[in-house]
């Protein structure tokens, strides 16, 4: 029910959805009944393969029984989930699929995970669900071996077509990235053209244009201070990598709770950049108290020229984008002149519960969704790049998604793989960054606070 209006925006989405009248945009009840038979199967020819192809334990046998899918509904909406579940249902009419989706589903289903009766398949995104924690808690099925040979419904090896490899925990794989997105800085190209401002390409040009913007009476930069992971993801982490000679292993060491990593000069350099923005008065003072939608509205209304955000932004705010507004995007602004652009990726992953009742169906579903057809559908319906390599440029995905894909595949871009921090350390970094940007602490305090949290977490 959440996403209907967003469909309207995906111009192209309509084209693909049209042949699928039966499970189109306003289909809210697809979940339990098999989506209407015959015509539905015109789609992609992928469906037949689901029953025959792949590495499923009982390849060729029909999937039966109950199959529960948990998916969080956030900035990407749920149009794709409804669609793909309907498709999968059509391909497996004897399977009783139960979709558990919503913006609060992580909280709502938590007791089931504790009780050992989780849903079979989970899409890990949103608050209160952390992949590292799920792994540590032994909640996810070990996919290390399976993924080495698993093929998708088209017969491609899944591991080969992933743009970003799965994160490893003690060299084991538990979850597979489905979405490949990027943090970064946005502006309105139209506004910049009108005012004659230069679009930033590196740190210096970012500072220069911010100066002009400020002189013109507009606040240069806003971030979502109530949730400081925005400024961390879009500004701080890429800046750390830039300052570390484009070597992102420093972030991986940070995630591995190595204190030295946090004390490295690269971290200090990056923190000092936030301080510089702060002291020059470029950061909107309102940032500290506002949430995503409020900060995004302020940005769209030109109260602020730049916003630290992620590529889901245009889709998320589609209804409120003023006429003539043109999103400009760069993954990072912390790099020196001539330095490489650093794209901090933001992925959302999927996994199978260790205590899943229907692992066969869950694996078959994995093979179903990691196909080219579903990948381009994801790009169209959710407005974000999927984690399947390649062919986005040919698809009907919105232009900013193609831009992002361009950045992420460019040889000159440093792509930071997804890194999940310990939840306590992450919270400490968020609190400290909010305080740093607001001016209540200095970089040394930031390091002190965070390393304290690291030491405690590492115990």
């Amino acid at each position, binding site marked *: 029910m959440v996403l209907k209006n967003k469909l309207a925006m995906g111009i192209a989405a309509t084209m693909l959805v049209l042949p699928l009248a039966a499970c189109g945009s306003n289909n809210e009840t697809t979940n339990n009944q098999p989506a209407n038979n015959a015509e539905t199967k015109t789609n992609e020819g992928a469906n037949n393969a689901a029953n025959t192809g792949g590495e499923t334990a009982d390849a060729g046998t029909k999937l039966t029984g109950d199959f529960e899918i948990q998916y969080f509904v956030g900035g990407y909406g749920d149009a794709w989930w409804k669609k793909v579940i309907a498709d999968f249902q059509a391909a497996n009419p004897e399977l009783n699929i139960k979709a558990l989706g919503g913006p609060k589903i992580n909280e709502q289903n938590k007791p089931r995970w504790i009780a050992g009766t989780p849903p079979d398949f989970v899409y890990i995104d949103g608050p209160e669900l952390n992949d590292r924690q799920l792994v540590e808690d032994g909640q996810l099925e070990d996919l290390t071996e399976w993924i080495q040979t698993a093929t998708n419904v088209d017969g491609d090896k899944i591991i080969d077509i992933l743009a970003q490899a799965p994160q490893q925990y003690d060299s084991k794989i538990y979850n597979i990235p489905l979405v490949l997105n990027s943090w970064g800085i946005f502006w309105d190209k139209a506004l910049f053209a009108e005012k004659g401002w230069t679009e930033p390409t590196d740190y210096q040009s970012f500072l220069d244009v911010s100066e002009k913007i400020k002189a013109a009476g507009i606040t240069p930069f806003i971030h979502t201070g109530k949730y400081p992971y925005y400024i961390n993801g879009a500004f701080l982490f890429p800046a750390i990598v830039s300052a570390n000679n484009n070597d992102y292993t420093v972030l991986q060491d940070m995630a591995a709770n190595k204190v030295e990593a946090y004390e490295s000069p690269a971290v200090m350099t990056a923190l000092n950049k936030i301080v510089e923005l702060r002291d020059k008065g470029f950061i909107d003072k309102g940032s500290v108290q506002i949430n995503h939608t409020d900060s995004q509205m302020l940005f769209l209304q030109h109260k602020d020229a730049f916003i630290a955000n992620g590529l889901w932004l245009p889709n998320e705010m589609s209804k409120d984008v003023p006429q003539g507004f043109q999103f400009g995007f760069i993954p990072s602004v912390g790099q020196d002149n001539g330095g490489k652009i650093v794209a901090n990726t933001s992925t959302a992953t999927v996994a199978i519960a260790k205590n899943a009742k229907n692992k066969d169906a869950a694996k078959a579903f994995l093979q179903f969704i990691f196909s080219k057809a579903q990948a381009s559908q994801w790009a169209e319906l959710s407005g974000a790049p999927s984690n399947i390599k390649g062919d986005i440029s040919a698809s009907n995905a919105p232009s900013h998604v193609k831009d992002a894909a361009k950045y992420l595949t460019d040889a000159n871009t440093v792509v930071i793989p997804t890194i999940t921090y310990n939840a306590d350390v992450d919270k400490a970094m968020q609190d400290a960054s909010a305080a740093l940007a607001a001016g*209540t602490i200095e970089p040394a305090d930031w390091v002190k606070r965070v390393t304290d949290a690291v030491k405690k977490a590492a115990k």
Partner: protein
Amino acid sequence: MARATGHPPNLHERKVNVMNSGSAKLQRTVFIASFIVPTLLFFSVFTIYPTIKALYFSFFDWSGMSQTKDFIGFDNYIEMFKDPIIWRAIGNDYFLVLGKIIGIMALATFFAVALTRFNFKLAGFFRSIFFIPNVISVVVIGVLWNFIYNPQIGFLNSFLSLFTKDQVTITWLGFADHTIWMLLPPAIWAGIGFYMLLLIAAIQNIPESYYEAASLEGSGQWRQFWTITLPLIWEQMKVSILNIMMTTLNGSFVIVWIMTEGGPDNSTQVMGTYLYQMAFRQYHFGFASAIGVLILVLSLLTTVVLQRLMRQETVELG
């Protein structure tokens, strides 16, 4: 009932007593049991048992998501007292307790006196109005006050901007320190009605003759308040103060969570929000349970202390 009073009671009563004193006792016991046990059973299953179970978790290292828990004795408690955020939360909690007690009691007492002793024609109307915030969900109140405090589209800044040349853009919920002060107005605003009604009822219970006598002696409203009203409603004020304290310590969670989630930088963290943050956002359910125990212990301690303090107070006034 009129019929009953016509009976010759003594005779009847004696007869009943003589005839079945033994089985009467049994009957009484059965009756008491049948009225106490179902409720108690119900309460035990759905409130006491889960609470004790949660307290039990406070001795475990448990993420709240895993199926395994490690017994670690008092480690959660030791860690808790080393955590600077918990001290900040306790400080904020008691700030709210104190601020709410002062704010609510001052205003509620003033309103109660004004609406009973001042002969305002609209007293009934005011009384009805003032209680309204109490019937509205705290969630709704939190959302409304967020819009009041919003730096750009909020009511407060727009209002202040009427008097200034430049647009006012104060971040009401984003001060480096003392942001907790901003949560006091909604809490007081939402709490007054209940205590006002309580005090009104207490004042109405005071015999009018007391005031008449005082008036004859020439004492005015102000004097009457100190010599008659206040001493005679002190009992209800005590109940109110205790109640404010208790509901604040274990109930301020909702409004704080909806408005600031304890931020920025933990500056508005209270024990309840920190419990929630730890249990559901940072995956330390055992630690969160320990915070729950802390809330319980502090509530009990504060009750005892407040009761001591206020008992002495009564003596002085008397």
